């Protein structure tokens, strides 16, 4: 009859292929649960590999039983000749006793020990605190104790436990950088915290994980784990007000920024622009991307002339502006280093 052995082997083989694929696909990837760059995420990915092994064994047992059902389809007993009582005993043994033992051990390990090691830190144990505020559809990043404000690209010192306090300005978002730690929701009225403690210098991609509306797909962020020295100079620059534009064109752009009402939504510290709707642009040029990683910073010109093209529905309106205004504005924005 028709259940071929292949039908039962196929899922097992698929599992194996998947396992290899997961191992390989990590190379050069930037949003991967299984390429840990912190002790915490290392715990979580170890948890996964152990669970995968356990699951493979569990699946194997059932696959063997299903195969036996087909293989012994002309015999009405258990292999070894057991009857009704033996079958019931097997159901109790395999269906109750074994899972209770395995799950108890698993529970203690995963939900007591691993949980403890990945849990949000007590503030006394971290070196610094960063505040991340979710907006539809971008991330506002503040460094309490300094004037530094940025967006979508979070810098942290490497090998330093950082306490991230996450809140939201509108709907629920979820902060998630897979290589560094688990995710944590940003919920109105709540201050949730999570630990970031990168063990390697690098750039780690993250994304909003809770559905937050039209452009949920384009709400990503990067965490840069910098050497402490580089981080300190970055933070010092970020805390300073904007430099005065050096060229006449850029100065013209300063005026355009006001008259075209960009300033109504964006802050540029050290100028009259103090809007709070969109990201702080004081040091825009230190960021590599725009619109929560939707496009590279090099496309700034296209973005300001038609922000609804790359990320339709975002809160930045397309403002009809003259070619001259566009060039001036671009020149000004490019001076914000």
């Amino acid at each position, binding site marked *: 009859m028709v259940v071929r052995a292949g039908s039962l082997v196929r*899922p097992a083989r698929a599992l194996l292929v998947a396992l290899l694929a997961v191992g390989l*696909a990590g190379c050069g990837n930037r949003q991967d649960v299984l390429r840990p760059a912190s002790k915490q995420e290392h715990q979580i990915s170890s948890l996964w590999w152990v669970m995968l092994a356990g699951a493979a064994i569990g699946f194997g047992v059932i696959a063997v039983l299903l195969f036996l059902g087909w293989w012994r389809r002309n015999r009405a007993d258990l292999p070894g000749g057991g009857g009704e009582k033996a079958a019931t005993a097997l159901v*109790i043994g395999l269906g109750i006793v074994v899972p209770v033992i395995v799950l108890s051990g698993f529970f203690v390990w995963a939900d007591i020990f691993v949980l403890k090691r990945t849990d949000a830190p007590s503030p006394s144990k971290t070196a610094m605190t960063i505040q991340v505020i979710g907006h539809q559809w971008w991330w506002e990043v503040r460094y309490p104790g300094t004037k530094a404000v940025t967006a979508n690209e979070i810098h942290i010192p490497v090998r330093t436990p950082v306490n991230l306090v996450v809140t939201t300005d509108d709907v629920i978002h979820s902060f998630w950088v897979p290589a560094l730690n688990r995710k944590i929701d940003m919920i109105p009225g709540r201050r*949730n915290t999570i630990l970031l403690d990168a063990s390697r210098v690098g750039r780690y991609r993250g994304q909003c994980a809770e559905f937050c509306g*039209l452009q949920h797909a384009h709400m990503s962020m990067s965490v840069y784990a910098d050497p402490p020295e580089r981080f300190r100079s970055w933070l010092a620059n970020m805390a300073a007000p904007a430099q005065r534009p050096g060229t006449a064109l850029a100065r013209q752009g300063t005026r355009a920024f006001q008259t075209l009402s960009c300033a109504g939504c964006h802050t540029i510290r050290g100028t009259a622009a103090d809007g709070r709707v969109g990201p702080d642009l004081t040091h825009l040029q230190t960021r590599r991307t725009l619109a929560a990683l939707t496009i590279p910073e090099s496309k700034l010109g296209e973005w300001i002339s038609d922000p609804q093209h790359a990320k339709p529905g975002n809160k930045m309106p397309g403002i009809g502006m003259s070619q001259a205004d566009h060039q001036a504005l671009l020149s000004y924005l490019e001076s914000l280093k």
Partner: protein
Amino acid sequence: MAVDVLTPRARSRVDRLERIWAEPPGIVGWLTTVDHKRIALLYFFTTLAFFGAGGVEALLIRTQLAGPNGKTLSPETYNQVMTMHGVTMIFLFIIPMTIGAFGNYLVPLMIGARDMAFPRMNALSYWLFLASGLFIYVGLFIGQGPNAGWFDYVPLALKRYDPGMGIDFYALGLILNGLSSTAGATNFIATIFKGRAPGMSLNRMPLFCFAMLAVSFALIFALPALTIDCVFLELQRRVGFHFFDVAHGGDPILWQHLFWIFGHPEVYIIVLPAFGIATSIIPTFAKRKMVAFPLVALAELLVAFIGFGVWAHHMFATGLPTTTLIFFAAASMMVVIPSTIQVFAWTLTVIMGRAEFRAPLLFIGGFITFFVIGGLSGIMFAAIPFDQATTDTYFVVAHFHFIIFGAAVFPVLGGMYYWFPKVTGRLYHEGLAKASFWLTFLGTSLTFFPMHIVGLLGMTRRVYTYPSNLGWEAYNLSETVGAFILAAGLVLILVNLVHSRFRGPPAGPDPFYGGTLEWTTSSPPPEYNFPVIPTVTSAYPNWDREDREADRRRLDQGLLVLDRGHETPASTVRDGILDEILDMPSGSPWPIVLAVSVSLVFVMLLTTHYLLAAAFVGLTTVSLAAWHWQEPQER
């Protein structure tokens, strides 16, 4: 027993039953029917249509996500389609399919009753269900479909962030849908407790009926949470209450708690009937009774019960206190045990029997395979840190599709083949059926398995598009290809069944030699189900040949024929001892009138015509009074 081999005396009794139970012909008959089999068929075709709609939505989603930066759907359309896919498959397909269609058709037949305990309420629950489905779909067709995901979190679903009518269609539609489910669930409990044939004590009741009993209780206790949630949401959206508004002392987490207090039992409500179908198909084709029958019955009831204690595992990333997390993780592990009991009981029954792998059993093999995969990934979510890493990613999407598609829909597909001869009186084409199994099995694996991997690679759920440099392309393409293969498999099933409905060879009453009572009567069963109420002495009464011979003799003698009116026996709850003979109502226009007027109340609420809504509440009251004007007489 089949009515074609009868003595003249028996024949005349059967003719009398035919006259008593005849329903009006044509469209009027369908609109006023209270026959559980016709209502089940109405449910079947309606849910099948919604399955088609949900399937088209799934294919649209997969087409959009086939490659990076897809342009098939706009973000707004994608969000509506994605939300409607979830709402449709859960509320308009799988639950009404398993409970409304399979449950309705089979429960009275399996327990030897002539109808559900409350036949008119049964009709009411169908018409309300149809109304709720149409109601929600009107939103989509006028471009105002719900768009906040099937679990519709606030504040995203509040007026401030979602000013259209989509969420109102969702909330009011689900309240209406809940009315239908509550009516149905109550009916099943009463039917299963009181309607069983003489001798069918609880320990002789088919496992399918245990599953339906568990589901019905779960529905009755779970649905109020969803209804209250939707009422709160509408009060906040329409009237300005502040249930979820932090600035006024509300809390958006309240929505999540109430939703998942309903939503997790809902998962078991989805899969339990499928377990019931599996426990019907396996003994028939293994040609022996279920191994560990009482344990399986207990497990079915337990899973519905423990399912109420695990809801917060959907909220592990919300920042709940650690103690809370650990409690719910422990409960989530406990709920595994009833499932492992059943998995081993199913597989050992196949091993212990002389299994004949016809199409229905193949689908059950697929079901067990997928259920085990989905179950194992489910256990992983009880590891809190792993849950917090992978929740809201495609890993979750993979997990619950293995459960909802693999573990719930596969038995439904197998069940369609299995009971097709009973419902139509004709046999399906076995070869095509097996081909359709392999096609759907391959399609399902290819669609949903890669989602595990792409989830671990960081792909979050509910994104309308994704960038090209994250290593997600190949997996997504495979999922899309798989989805179309799966769709082809489903179409093949439809083709097989439609063709066999008209061209299939006659099936006879019992083509598979099934163990339960539905196989004792002719195919399709007559309006009155059984010419004589069967007397039951075991859990597989159709295998008790002497008992069935005794039924035949009783028909000759006129015992337990109940041919003095629309009659069905009622028995004691535990032991199934014949208690009284009930007069049942016959066809009635009031269920559909009542359903229409209730639906109009909701339409008026939606369109903010509150005075008209009140008027229709009045009409509803009048219809209820008219409904009860003429009660059937008890004897």
